[in-house]
């Protein structure tokens, strides 16, 4: 026969001990090493991170590479295994759990060209015919060919072009791409 008081005590105690073990202890151990380096994070990058979260990129792209010998991330050229210090104290954490698309922890080192990212965001099928990534047309302005002289539209393949129009990235697209390019574990952390 379980008594009410024992039940109550047991329920709270089991919870509290595990909470201490899995949330407070890691905070003490990890924070110590992570909080020290103070990064300068440009405005574009923090804004880009916000848009990355807003569009839910993390539901298809993990942002954590696995260490050598565990999985094939290193062999795929996705860079070394991620470290706690790679995340530049940007919250939320965005480690992710899915790889419907490739891992992004080191995307800035693999794809450093802005144009490539713009095209991929505007129309992923223009980069890879078989991609199942959603398009993000609301991050782009469609303007007439002669508007905003001096700025070239995206260099899209013929079938994705709109006649008489050119496609320009908005500020949000520029921030997001700045953030993606900042994801570089080769040079990001010493």
């Amino acid at each position: 026969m379980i008594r009410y008081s024992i039940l109550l005590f047991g329920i709270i105690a089991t919870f509290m001990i595990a909470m201490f073990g899995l949330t407070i202890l890691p905070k003490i151990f990890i924070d110590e090493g992570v909080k020290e380096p103070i990064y300068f994070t440009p405005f574009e990058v923090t804004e880009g991170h916000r848009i990355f979260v807003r569009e839910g990129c993390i539901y298809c792209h993990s942002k954590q590479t696995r260490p050598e010998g565990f999985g094939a991330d290193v062999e795929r050229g996705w860079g070394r295994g991620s470290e706690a210090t790679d995340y530049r104290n940007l919250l939320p954490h965005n480690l992710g759990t899915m790889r419907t698309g490739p891992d992004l922890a080191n995307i800035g080192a693999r794809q450093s060209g802005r144009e490539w990212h713009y095209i991929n965001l505007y129309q992923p099928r223009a980069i890879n015919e078989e991609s199942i990534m959603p398009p993000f047309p609301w991050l782009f302005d469609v303007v007439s060919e002669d508007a905003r002289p001096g700025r070239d539209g995206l260099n899209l393949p013929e079938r994705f072009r709109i006649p008489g129009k050119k496609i320009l990235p908005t500020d949000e697209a520029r921030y997001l791409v700045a953030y993606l390019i900042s994801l570089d574990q080769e040079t990001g952390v010493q």
Partner: protein
Amino acid sequence: MNQEKQSNQNKELSVTELDQKARFVVLFLILSGVFWLLFGTLLALVASIKMHLPEWLGSAEWLTFGRVRPLHLNTMVYGWASLTGAGVALWMLSRLLKVPILLRGYIIVAGAVWNIALLVGSIQILAGFSRGIEWLEFPVSTMVAIVLCVIIMSASVLLMILTRRVKQLYVSVWYILAAFLWFPLLGLVSSLPIFDTPTVQAGMNWWYAHNALGLWFTPVGLAAAYYFIPKVLGRPIYSYGLSLLGFWGLALFYNWNGFHHLIGGPVPTWFVTISIAASVMMVIPVVVVAVNHHMTVVGSFSAIKYSPTLRFVVFAAMSYTFVSLQGSMQALRSVNEVIHFTHFVVAHAHIGMYAFVTMMLFGACYYILPRITLREWHSKKLIKWHFWLTAIGIIIYAGALQGIGLFQGFAMNDPDVPFTDTVTMTIPYLIARSVSGILMGAGHLIFAWLLVRMVFQPGEQPATPLIWEKIRKEFAL
């Protein structure tokens, strides 16, 4: 003899009275849960179809995959399963403790606030104001509102236990009490602003997310299994000792499982190892509970033919055993290396939240609603359709995604396979998932229609009970 009959009748009457007092609260919680079930199903279908037709609704900012997919999870978890689960748990508690549900007025207000919080949170996620943490996408304000509503229900649970009219606390009561203490604590800790570095937040994230299932939905689901299996069959649970072991095993080990989501990730290995050990230890409470339930059903298995409740509940209890043992295996590093980051895990989560929790709640609803409304289900045939559509739907879902998830994992770990191939190989199975979603969605519509028919009484009502006659004769209940 006569006297015994007399006292039996008194007991019956008091049960009916308890049900009548529970009527409005429980109906309100279950009906609003079912509303979120339908909404969440719609979101699920949109998200699923978008995975193989990425251009569909492609220019609608509010409906991009990255917003619909988290909202699907949040409406199912905090809407359907939490609201309906709370209704089912409170009803069981009232029956088990022989006291009416207390603080009914406050719970109604809490339920209303909860629904408004869900609505506001949903709009915020679709508008792009997600918190961006899996299972915690609702903004902190929504989460805190929900937790405060749960605390009101927790107060009711504690008061009911203090004023109970029975001596013994049945095993379902332990689980319900635990659930109503654990969930608000989880919600509050997860909302604290102390997790301010990315990897620490990731740790909190998976401690929370795994425990939301393990310490909230699982205890409510197991309480229902422990209640309805013996109730429908009219025999006691097989072993009190095993119940005890199962309960404390869950309390000790489930709490520690969260970090197995971060195997191979940027956190100290020893935290991960603790979680792997705890995940494997979960085999003990799971097997113990499975044996206890199985030994109770053994010999009267044919009753699932006649009782919709038992059919759903037994399906759910078997799914619980399956999904938990699978989970213990998935936590092993060698297995996790393959299946992490693939559709295998998505399917695993659905076996937990759907094949176990959701099916359990369906079963509970089939038992509870006729008793609180004093009306019969409208159609035996439609209940069967509901069961088979949802059961076959989730089996296709799990089979398709776990099958391909395994190959996707192997392909991903083979650097000679181009990444694009790991995507294209999944497409036929993603289509199968959409089909299974349509089947389950059809089942949900049938369930909702049966509910509307029963509660709001459009059209003619059946004159005699449809399902219970036969089981009453068979098992002399």
